[in-house]
């Protein structure tokens, strides 16, 4: 029963996708809609194949930016959370600014960053700004949710600050950190795209988002769809990879990674 249920769960979204694509194709063909208005799925796929040299290069650029932004967000978020955890004084001074950075829409910050920073740096900073906050707040939450008695035990045995951090706080925070990273992965991609669009409008750049903007100006609608498709796939892959890492790291002990039977 349960395996049948699982197959159904995997199959249903695929069925929905196929039906949706078929309907889309049908509507375009029956009404004879031109590709510069709405390309059919087949034309989008054709464009993806024919434009692959251009698109794959842009995909590489965007992915690299995302990765750099993500790493900066992960390192920055975790490091800042560790600093805050060691010094309340520091936390009270800086945390409000982390929140301000988070709530100010990145699309509004991007043009400013492009003025003051070299373009490639500005794009990475954008990816970092949107990605670091979930890592920071989740790590902070994790570091603060250490079992009180376990903390007492460390105190009883005279653990140093570093020992407490390494053997107690970090492992206890790990599920929270991984949750934060999972959110940050998707957000870094969004940050990279936003910055690329902002930069692209200034006349340079070659990431996927820039290709979308550029294709828009040239009314190359099929290529817009193809680039969009690649961005979606990239987002899904990033999320899937981070979820996999999280599962592999936590599977021996954390509730979230255990099957229902356990």
């Amino acid at each position, binding site marked *: 029963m349960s395996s049948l249920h699982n197959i159904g769960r995997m199959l249903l979204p695929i069925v929905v996708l196929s039906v949706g694509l078929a309907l889309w194709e049908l509507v375009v063909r029956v009404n004879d809609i031109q590709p510069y208005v709405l390309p059919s799925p087949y034309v989008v796929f054709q464009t993806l194949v024919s434009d692959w040299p251009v698109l794959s290069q842009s995909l590489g650029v965007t992915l690299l930016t995302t990765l750099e932004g993500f790493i900066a967000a992960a390192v920055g978020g975790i490091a800042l959370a560790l600093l805050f955890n060691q010094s309340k004084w520091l936390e009270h001074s800086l945390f409000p600014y982390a929140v301000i950075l988070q709530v100010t829409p990145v699309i509004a910050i991007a043009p400013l960053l492009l003025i003051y920073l070299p373009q490639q740096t500005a794009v990475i900073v954008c990816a970092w700004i949107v990605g670091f906050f979930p890592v920071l707040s989740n790590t902070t939450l994790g570091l603060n949710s250490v079992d009180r008695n376990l903390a*007492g*035990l*460390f105190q009883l045995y005279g653990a140093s600050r570093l020992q407490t951090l390494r053997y107690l706080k970090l492992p*206890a925070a790990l599920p929270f950190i991984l949750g934060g990273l999972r959110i940050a992965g998707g957000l870094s991609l969004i940050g990279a795209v936003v910055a690329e669009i902002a930069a692209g409008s200034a006349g340079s750049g070659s990431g996927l988002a820039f290709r979308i903007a550029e294709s828009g100006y040239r009314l190359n609608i099929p290529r817009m769809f193809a680039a969009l498709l690649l961005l979606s796939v990239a987002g899904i892959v990033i999320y899937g990879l981070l979820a996999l890492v999280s599962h592999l790291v936590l599977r021996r002990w954390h509730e979230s990674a255990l099957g229902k039977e356990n």
Partner: protein
Amino acid sequence: MSETNIDAAGLAVRLRAVTKTYDSGVTALGPLDLDIAKGEFVSLLGPSGCGKSTALRLIAGLAVPSAGTVDVSHRASKADGRHPIGFVFQEPTLMPWANVHDNVRLPLKLAHVTATEADRRIDDALAQVGLAEFADAYPRELSGGMKMRVSLARALVTDPDILLLDEPFAALDEITRFRLNNDLLDLWRKLHKTVIFVTHSVFESVYLSQRVIVMTARPGRLAREFRVTTSEPRGEEFRTSAEYAAHCREVSSALTPSYSGQRSA
């Protein structure tokens, strides 16, 4: 600080006029005077919130008294990873990310004991609580009673002089609790440790201890104390004996004022 040397007096723990008042202004404990001899098995018995756990935390050094002095005998040197005090909480308080072996290893790791020496001691401690085969298991794979045994092994691995147990078996079913009671008594007889056992069960305190200290409702003070003298070793026959029942009745009657005296208790 203390009038005479605590070791010379043969004491493991000595409390003098100890009080604990929390920041909120609530006085949880005291003033309390308490002498616990080396090798003694003592229970602190009282209603919830009477400060018995607070007393244990003060002895462990996990909290600082608001007034009075707490003296604890420190015979064991810390250098070889021995620690004078072992503490078992009401919850097993294990690290879920570490297996049984690594959980028990924790106090030794914090004391920088070498791996080979640590392994030998961990094996000993696990054997003592009957979990030798479960070294590689993770806490979630164990039953409540087994987790408590791991917690006990972790407390024993530093070879402490004093074992502090804070309602360790309160969350377990009765069958498991009885078995762990017997195992704890065996360990105490074999290892000659001082045991201070906090509980709110009259039956458990009488069954286990040489001396039962009944505490009043908040703020916790010494209400009465009882010596439970019976032929050792105790076993299941003692649990069903008339002598045991008589002791329990006596201790229960000493608890009654604290039930009726204060509604909030």
